[in-house]
């Protein structure tokens, strides 16, 4: 139960962040150039992502032994989580600017110039690229978080629910979801993914964790403490 909740939560939060970024691109294209092309691009990207999930999902389930899968997915999840955590530390310390959906939206709008005559390939490709690339991260999070430990159904539900919630919110407000605390979410998800990645990579090596799945909480505490230590060290005046 605890494991299922953790997997669902990680997949939901991670997917919500990425879906928000994809939504910003689709909204920017749709509101400036019309909706037909970006919606077609979105559908094409979702179909391509579904094919990837079915193909790799089958490959993972049927071909890779459990311990190798844990080591592989754990290592990738660890690298992925550390990337998010690294960026979150730099953002928290003020070294890197925080991600701003309003600014991302304005930048995309500035690149576009009103509705295009005939078939709008620019709008189609922009939406396809945005949804596909952000969606790749959703797919990876869902497969990696749920692919080991029999948590795939919970991860898929978490990922899909996040996409639906973000899409509905986007349709309702019709502007970027700037109020989503994206940077805080990325920090939290970075800690969770790094902890899950460490847990599974070590299990793939043949290690047994004390208290089994509960030790992920301990890992999260250690990684959170390390990230706060990094923020404190970076902010120290001696560095300036």
């Amino acid at each position, binding site marked *: 139960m605890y494991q299922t909740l953790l997997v669902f939560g990680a997949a939901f939060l991670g997917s919500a962040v990425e879906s928000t970024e994809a939504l910003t691109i689709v909204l920017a294209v749709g509101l400036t150039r019309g909706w037909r092309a970006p919606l077609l691009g979105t559908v094409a990207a979702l179909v391509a992502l579904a094919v990837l999930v079915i193909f790799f999902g089958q490959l993972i389930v049927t071909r890779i032994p459990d311990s190798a899968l844990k080591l592989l997915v754990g*290592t*990738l999840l*660890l*690298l*992925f989580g*550390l*990337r998010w*955590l*690294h*960026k979150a*530390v*730099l953002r928290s*310390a003020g*070294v*890197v600017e925080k991600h701003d959906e309003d600014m991302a939206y304005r930048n995309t709008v500035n690149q576009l110039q009103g509705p295009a005559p005939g078939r709008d390939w620019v709008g189609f*490709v922009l939406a*396809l*690229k945005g949804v*596909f*690339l952000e969606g*790749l*991260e959703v797919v*990876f999070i869902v497969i990696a978080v749920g692919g080991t430990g029999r948590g795939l159904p919970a991860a898929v539900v978490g990922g899909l629910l996040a996409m639906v919630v973000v899409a509905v919110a986007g349709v309702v407000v019709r502007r970027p979801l700037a109020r989503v605390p994206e940077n805080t979410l990325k920090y939290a998800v970075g800690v969770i993914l*790094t902890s899950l990645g*460490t847990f599974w*990579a*070590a299990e793939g*090596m*043949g*290690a*047994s*964790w*004390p208290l089994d799945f509960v030790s992920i909480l301990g*890992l999260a505490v*250690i*990684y959170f*403490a*390390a*990230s706060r*230590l*990094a923020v404190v*060290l*970076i902010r120290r005046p001696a*560095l*300036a």
Partner: protein
Amino acid sequence: MKFLRSAGEAVVGLFVGDWVQSAIVLVILGAGWLAVSRLGAAALVVLVLLLAGQLVWFARAEAQRSKR
């Protein structure tokens, strides 16, 4: 072609920001694998501390680089 290249770069970029940092993480995991088979759970403590330590080290190093 351009789309495929940016998709490929995006996939690699999911896991690798700094190649040196990623290599260090893999080295730590490789050493951890050897240590776990010989030392058991005690090796896990060292593994986790090394992974947490490299996070602090590389974040601080990047902050120093960007402040120069």
